[in-house]
């Protein structure tokens, strides 16, 4: 029996145990929906992680047998040996779960839902109903994906990118049968969920901000969620298009991606004229923005958490926004760097190389701004702060290797090697998951009205941080020595023998990291019920979410009038104030902001337009005027 199916069942029961269906299950309150996203995301994350540990066991001890593999996988782990087909399945589903279900829905779904209305001062999302649908589509999608792991022919196993023809021909590998069909169904449901969510996020941010919350007073979290939602809105439909063609090729016999194929044991197929590379173009048109859909919310959370815990304004607020904007824009025109060696026109390759390397500039600006924010701060090391700093560290280490991979020439050698695995696991995997942890530790009091245990958080952070580096750092060297990824074992290639010991180190580290997550789970679930009651504003933060009462469940967020905003979100340690923070909603009689707000009462629309133009001018100045 597969664990996945069990988990799905468990999850379903979990949801039904709650007594008030409208309150806890089909809730339209963004705060409840965010918790639903979070819990589902955590469960999916655990499943994805266990999968990775199983195939790590295989890589480290290819000749040994593990009773746990037989116990968990049944016929796919006969005699405690992982089946090669199922190895591919695990790799694929691990990637799918982590990329889409944990780091897209689990991260963006949780925190966009929680923070957008609370931080911009809205009663709820633009359409609470769509928001609810968004979660339930996501839930159905998760269930379908987990069911696909349990089907007889195994789950989809062509890698998370599911390139046809491998994924299009059910005779090409067992996983391309029913497992792949279910994978596609799951992804279509996921796209619907993501679009419903994204539409809401954008429209709430643009249309439903409270009085005084001009665009240039929005916290960077909101900016990041906003750009993320825009990326999702523009790129997920393209994945839907790619998926439609694939579904038709698989089930109805069209030839969009298929041409000139002879399959062992079947013979020559009828399909001609299709183009497998077309799929890659469509897929990566989503796929590349997707990595920023994953990373940007984490960066937004980090900006907020670092500024708050350094008790210092975030350095270069405008630059941070412009770099987010730059990254978002560029992410749409660099998809070709995943395809340098598909035989594409070399000139096109150079264009994609240039565009790709430009992304390093806004990324560098972000990294330096984080460093400067820490400089001469007064750093409070809450677990959230530690995870944010961990993110910055991963963002730098993993980002720098992107400069190698974005270079078409260097990519010839490094493409699909372990170097790539190391690169993206650091820069978008570990970094984004650390952003998610930072968010959970930071906003846990806002979600549940209680505090998490700090000391457990410290253990969780340091163990995870160290083991994550131990897992991914040596992989760079494997990749540079020419070790390909997605190999079931290396023992059949003599050259790779030296890496068996490294693989053992990696696997042991991964297992320790896995166990460290149990600390987090314990801390999270115990604290929901037993945690210390939180103060209204436990972190001394400036943003609006801490003004809405945290001890009452309130659909509508604020009991009375919506708060009015008087200044930007990062007024920490102002020299003229005794306290080291200055919440956005507290008026300051002497400050020019109040006068401005007085004016704005007459013509709020005008005021808003003014504020927006000022961001725009700052952007223009920055780009052209250099000062």
């Amino acid at each position: 029996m597969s664990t996945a199916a069990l988990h799905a069942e468990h999850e379903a029961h979990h949801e039904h145990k709650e007594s008030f269906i409208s309150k806890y299950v089909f809730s339209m309150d963004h705060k409840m929906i965010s918790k639903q996203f979070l819990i589902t995301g955590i469960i999916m994350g655990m499943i994805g992680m266990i999968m990775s540990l199983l195939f790590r066991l295989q890589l480290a001890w290819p000749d040994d047998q593990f009773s746990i593999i037989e116990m968990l996988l049944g016929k796919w782990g006969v005699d405690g040996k992982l089946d090669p087909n199922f190895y591919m399945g695990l790799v694929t589903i691990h990637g799918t779960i982590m990329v889409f279900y944990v780091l897209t829905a689990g991260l963006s779904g949780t925190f966009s839902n929680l923070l957008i209305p609370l931080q911009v001062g809205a009663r709820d999302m633009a359409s609470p109903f769509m928001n609810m649908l968004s979660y339930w589509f996501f839930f159905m999608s998760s269930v379908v994906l987990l069911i696909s792991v349990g089907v007889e022919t195994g789950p989809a196993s062509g890698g998370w990118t599911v390139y046809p023809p491998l994924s299009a021909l059910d005779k090409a590998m067992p996983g391309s049968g029913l497992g792949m069909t279910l994978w596609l169904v799951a992804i279509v449901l996921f796209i619907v969920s993501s679009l419903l969510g994204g539409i809401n996020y954008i429209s709430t941010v643009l249309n439903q901000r409270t009085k005084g919350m001009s665009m240039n007073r929005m916290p960077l979290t909101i900016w990041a969620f906003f750009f993320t939602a825009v990326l999702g809105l523009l790129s997920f439909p393209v994945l839907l298009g790619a998926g439609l063609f694939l579904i038709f090729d698989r089930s109805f016999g069209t030839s969009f991606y298929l041409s000139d194929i002879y399959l062992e044991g079947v013979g020559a197929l009828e399909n001609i004229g299709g183009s497998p590379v077309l799929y890659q173009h469509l897929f990566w048109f989503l796929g590349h923005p997707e990595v920023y859909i994953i990373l940007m919310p984490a960066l937004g959370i980090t900006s907020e958490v670092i500024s708050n815990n350094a008790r210092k304004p975030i350095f270069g607020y405008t630059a941070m926004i412009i770099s987010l904007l730059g990254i978002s824009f560029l992410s749409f025109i660099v998809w070709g760097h995943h395809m340098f060696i598909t035989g594409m026109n070399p000139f096109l390759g150079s264009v994609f190389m240039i565009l790709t390397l430009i992304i390093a500039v806004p990324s560098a600006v972000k990294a330096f701004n984080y460093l400067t924010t820490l400089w001469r701060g007064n750093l409070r090391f809450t677990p959230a702060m530690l995870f944010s700093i961990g993110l910055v560290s991963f963002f730098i280490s993993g980002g720098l290797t992107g400069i190698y991979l974005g270079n078409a020439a260097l990519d010839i050698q490094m493409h699909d090697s372990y170097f790539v695995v190391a690169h993206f696991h650091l820069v978008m995997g570990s970094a984004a998951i650390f952003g998610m942890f930072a968010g959970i530790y930071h906003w846990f009091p806002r979600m549940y009205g209680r505090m998490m245990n700090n000391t457990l958080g410290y253990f969780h952070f340091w163990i995870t941080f160290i083991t994550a580096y131990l897992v991914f750092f040596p992989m760079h060297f494997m990749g540079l020595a020419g070790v390909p990824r997605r190999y079931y074992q290396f023992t059949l290639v003599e050259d790779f023998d030296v890496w068996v010991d490294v693989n053992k180190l990696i696997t042991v580290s991964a297992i320790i990291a896995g166990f460290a997550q149990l600390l987090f789970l314990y801390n999270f679930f115990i604290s929901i019920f037993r945690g210390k009651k939180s103060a209204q504003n436990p972190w001394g933060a400036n943003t609006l979410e801490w003004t809405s009462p945290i001890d009452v469940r309130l659909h509508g967020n604020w009991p009375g009038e919506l708060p009015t905003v008087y200044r930007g979100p990062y007024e920490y340690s102002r020299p003229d104030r005794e306290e080291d923070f200055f919440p956005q909603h507290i008026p300051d009689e002497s400050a020019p902001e109040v006068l401005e707000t007085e004016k704005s009462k007459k013509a709020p629309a005008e005021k808003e337009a003014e504020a927006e133009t000022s961001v725009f001018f700052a952007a223009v100045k920055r780009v052209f005027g250099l000062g």
Partner: protein
Amino acid sequence: MNTKKKMKDPEPLVAPGKFNLWLLMLASSMLFASLVSAFIVHKPDAQAKSTWTAFDLPIFFLVSVFVAVLSSVTIFVAWKAAKNDELNTNKTFTALTLALGLLFCVTQYLGWKQLISLDLTLVNARPEDISASYVWMITGVHVLHVLGGLVLLSVALVKSFKLEVHKKNMTLMSITHTYWHFVGLLWIFLYLFLYFAQ
């Protein structure tokens, strides 16, 4: 517990429903953009392998264009009427638009039948007709959008008979109006694209 109704919050600049609709239309434009660009990217490739044939679009697809234009006019009249509280005109023209929408589906169906009679099926009877597969995919996805529009129109019609569509309750009518123009324009664009790009 819903405190929303009790208080006078500042009204958002645009009705949330309308704003969401625009974003939804943006998303589905991206879907069509992906289908259309797949067509553009694939064409030279398939031509090189001589697996691409250009063919005349069925005449009924052109009829669909006229139906789309006409129904855009009728929905506009209906919307305008609702705005001016001319409820009877609104009812008539909403119903007319619904009828034209159904007619659109019929002409699409006839167009497809015409394609089938020419052996230009979705799953190619002749492998060199990848172009036909694209025509089927694009028109198919578009008709799904039209069906969504028909659902909206039916709801709007029912509401207008219940006298729930008037000057002060325009959100549904505006959404239907905007969306119907969108699918109509989309069809005109797709027709011209398929006509010229083959």
